[in-house]
């Protein structure tokens, strides 16, 4: 039976249902055990993904290949780390309800479905399965006005994006006669020209996906939601869903619509350039760290899309490596943000980091590592991420992209380095930040070491990304 191919998703779904069931039974607080159970489920799913066979299943709705395995493992790791960030924070902020880990689990399930989607129907299914928990999570601190506002904004705009995607899918179906990726690809390969209807439909689909990765001009929700949502939620938003949505975008564009590359390419180039520019410039004036990270993530998506825009295996490999490194930089940086507390209250301004180099050298060091890595300073991992996409752009002859990429990363370096400067050269206020709890320290150290050590052992990651890219491009 072919459905066994989807075993990781099935197991994860069952785990989710079981945890949901068990979670309601005891009267007392079950946040921590449930979170642990979810983490375990995510890791179990990751193991299953690694042992997964390749092929198409469920009447062509579902595909498993090296690309999906790589991206799924990455998304699962991102989700698990994101959940770890919430452990201490949620308890202190009285958000320690057991639904939180369950929401994370179902969102992650949605991601996996997205990554493995082989039909526009399963794309939509996965996307909605991801989006609905995210809306709830954004508003999870429901007593706080800005959290509720964030959730509502995200929901309204997300609904709009979903609508666009669905409308696009229906256009494609109407003009091409199928929603299955393989058959779409065959159809476009067979006929000479494509009808404008398909093309318009494709743009709508791209818009829906661009919303999830918060690429310009579908990014508008990002700063508000990132700022309003509880910090661990923001951390989760910034990592795992981006992986899934980028993977899906890559699969859609390079799979069924590969023959239309000449048409969609210019749109991706534009999105990439606009994202890089906005990510670099808009963050300069930000004082709120979460807002700053929102713009930073927009910029990073721009760089990652550069790999997609050049339409080559080198470019796709660059994208895969970039997003992987991005997850580790981002989770690490958010671990520091989550850990920022003064006198029991969470703080999130850049000035709150002042003097951290003296009051908490370890945390300051890790933050500096993440900031340097994000700025793309060698020998940290972020440099290699940028290096591979820039290389791909240069090899493909996309000089404009590469030059804009370099220039914007120079501009972006300003606000990353400003954080380092604030940490090491500014006077600390009277009350120092509290010590980071162990769970966060572990995440910081793990991701920090990854950023530091990547330059020493880049080969496994590059090889895996190469295989994944090859699988997608056939």
């Amino acid at each position: 039976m072919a459905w066994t191919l989807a075993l990781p998703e099935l197991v994860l779904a069952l785990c989710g249902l079981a945890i949901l069931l068990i979670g309601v039974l005891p009267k007392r607080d079950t946040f921590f055990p449930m979170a642990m159970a979810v983490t375990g489920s995510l890791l179990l799913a990751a193991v299953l993904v690694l042992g997964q066979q390749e092929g198409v299943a469920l009447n062509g709705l579902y595909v498993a290949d090296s690309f999906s395995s790589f991206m799924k493992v990455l998304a699962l790791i991102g989700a698990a780390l994101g959940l770890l960030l919430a452990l201490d924070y949620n308890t202190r902020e009285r958000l320690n309800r057991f639904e939180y880990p369950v929401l994370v689990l179902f969102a992650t399930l949605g991601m996996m479905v997205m990554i493995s989607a082989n039909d526009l129907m399963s794309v939509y299914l996965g996307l909605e399965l991801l989006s609905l928990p995210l809306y709830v999570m954004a508003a999870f601190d429901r007593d706080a006005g800005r959290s509720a506002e964030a959730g509502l904004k995200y929901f309204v705009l997300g609904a709009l994006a979903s609508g666009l995607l669905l409308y696009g899918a229906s256009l494609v179906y109407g003009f091409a006669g199928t929603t299955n990726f393989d058959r779409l690809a065959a159809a476009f390969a067979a006929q000479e020209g494509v009808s404008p209807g398909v093309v318009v439909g494709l743009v709508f689909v791209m818009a829906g996906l661009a919303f999830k990765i918060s690429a310009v001009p579908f990014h508008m929700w990002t700063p508000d939601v990132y700022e309003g949502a509880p910090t661990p939620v923001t951390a989760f938003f910034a990592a795992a869903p981006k992986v899934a949505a980028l993977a899906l975008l890559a699969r859609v564009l390079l799979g069924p619509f590969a023959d239309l590359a000449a048409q969609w390419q210019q749109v991706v180039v534009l999105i990439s350039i606009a994202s890089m520019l906005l990510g670099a410039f808009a963050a300069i004036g930000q004082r709120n760290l979460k807002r700053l990270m929102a713009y930073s993530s927009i910029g990073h998506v721009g760089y990652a899309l550069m790999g997609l825009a050049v339409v080559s295996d080198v470019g796709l490999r660059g994208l895969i490596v970039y997003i992987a490194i991005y997850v580790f930089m981002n989770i690490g940086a958010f671990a520091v943000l989550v850990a920022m507390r003064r006198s029991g209250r969470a703080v999130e301004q850049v000035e709150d980091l002042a003097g951290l180099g003296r009051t908490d050298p370890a945390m300051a060091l890790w933050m500096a590592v993440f900031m340097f890595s994000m700025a793309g300073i060698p020998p940290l991992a972020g440099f290699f991420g940028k290096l591979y996409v820039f290389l791909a752009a240069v090899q493909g002859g996309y000089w404009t992209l590469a030059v804009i990429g370099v220039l914007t990363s120079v501009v972006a370096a300003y606000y990353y380095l400003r954080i380092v400067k604030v940490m090491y050269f500014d006077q600390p206020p009277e009350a120092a930040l509290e010590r980071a709890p162990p769970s966060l320290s572990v995440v910081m150290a793990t991701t920090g070491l990854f950023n530091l050590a990547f330059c020493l052992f880049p080969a496994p990651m590059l090889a895996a990304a190469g295989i994944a890219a090859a699988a997608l491009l056939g």
Partner: protein
Amino acid sequence: MLVGAVFFPLLGAAISGLFGRWIGDRVAQWSTVICMVLAAVCGIGAFAQVALGGQPTTVPIVTWMEVGGLEASWALRYDTLSAVMVMMVTFISTLIHLYSVGYMSHDATPYRFFAYLSLFTFMMLMLVTADNLAQLFFGWEGVGLASYLLIGYWYEKESANVAAMKAFIVNRVGDLFFMLGVALTFFVFGSIEFSIIFAAVPDRAQDIFLGVNALELIAVLLFLGACGKSAQIGLHTWLPDAMEGPTPVSALIHAATMVTAGVFLVCRMSPVFEFAPTALALVTVVGATTAFFAATVGCVQNDIKRVIAYSTCSQLGYMFFAAGVGAYQVAMFHLFTHAFFKALLFLGAGSVIHAMSDEQDIRKMGGIWTKIPITYVVMWIGSLALAGIPFFAGYYSKDAILEAAFAAHSPVGMYAFILGLAAAFLTAFYSWRLLILTFHGAPRADAHTMEHVHESPWVMLFPLLVLAAGAIGVGYLFYPLFIGAHEQAFWQGSVFTGPDNHILHDMHEVPGWVPIAPAAIGLAGIALAYVMYMIAPELPGRLASRFRGLYLFLLNKWYFDELYDALFVRPARRLAEVFWKVGDARIIDGMPNGAADLAVQASRGAVRMQTGRVANYAFAMIIGLVIFVSLFLIGFVR
């Protein structure tokens, strides 16, 4: 032994410089002194083996660089020329290290001083034992560096810093020519190794470069480089200012060794110079002019060290014109004797300064000869040697130089001879002016200083006595070897003289009055000084007011500094100001600042779009979608 002579000072410098802070001042000082003593023993041994024993040799150490056709190795070229220099440098340097132990006893960081001093010695030895021009240049720059560090040793003093920079920059001007000379040498000969160059010189004698004889051009360029290091007229301005350094430094670097590097270079490159008669004439004229010019300035200076500094400048001029008329051996001989008596004079002056509580103005001294008799006596000996009074060291060498100039039988030779004689007169005059003003007459210092006048400790007096013995004896002892009967066996061709160059022979055949003239004129100078400063002390003042123009002209050192200030320094500063204010501040800084402003404004614009209203956001999404769809369709239609 040959290697030890060169590398012991480096060892000393390393010990003192790197570990001086931990091992303490005393250990650091004495370890450098011991290293120097070992080096001196090796140096004398090397001299005995190479020059006296007649075994010139080259000690290869390691290949330094191999770039295309350019190959340079570290190797110690020991022939008589370098052996003489090695012995002289290590010997004098050892004495000066010893002297410094006493002189610098009140200093805060003596280990730094000793490290620099030893480093300098190493660099100088590197220079003189170089086997190729690149290594020589290494030593050349190295002594320049050490000189800079030592002149500016008291870096809290503004004047010391200024002087150090001046010395370095003026030297750079000379170095530029030197580098051009090296480059041209490589261009012409395809090598910078001495042995290859010297062997190829006769074949290249007719080469033309840019319409000029290539060898002439090389010789002129190298000589201009030598001018910088040896403070010849035009590039001499740094030397008097270099007296800002501690006195032992002046004695070692700015009298006995480093400044003679230029003379050494000319002698070392004698095979090239011998084929460049025009360059040699230039050397003669510049040397003679410097000898005279510096002597005139020396007559009116009031700082005890500056007087001796100008005297050094003048004596270097002698050496150059001796080389210029082809008597390289004579130039080396004067270099050798001069090292002894000039180091003696400087150290003596240091002893006086030490006694006078750091007073350097001779107008504020006087009447102290009974209080510091040993210093007084050695200063006399040094001055007698400097003035060329018979049977002191300077007599043999200076006499020989003037004879050689006369024997050249050429217009430039005669020019050099006449100026040389005049300079000899002035030399004697200012030496005794110095002696008389410093030691005789009524005390002009305040009573407090006079109370403290004391003889220096033995660690300082011992080097003085050794050098005094040298100032008396080396001329007589080494005369036969350097320029006398055994001259050919001694030099063994390390100094090249062309087939038509019989100057060493001719100089013994000059008319009878020529050898006597310098001594006689020297005595006349002494007599004049005696009259002017002992018998009629009011005379100098009257002369100065009578010939005010001339006096000021000399006092201001022929206005060289002012001239350079107006010609180079101020225009350069003005240019730099323009570059700074317009080029850098406005244009170069302007671009990034403007870009940064632009970035900030772009940021404001981007943030303004973020209104916080969902409707606006949705609108932006739709507009974006519309744009993409139209783009898509346009692309599609196309």
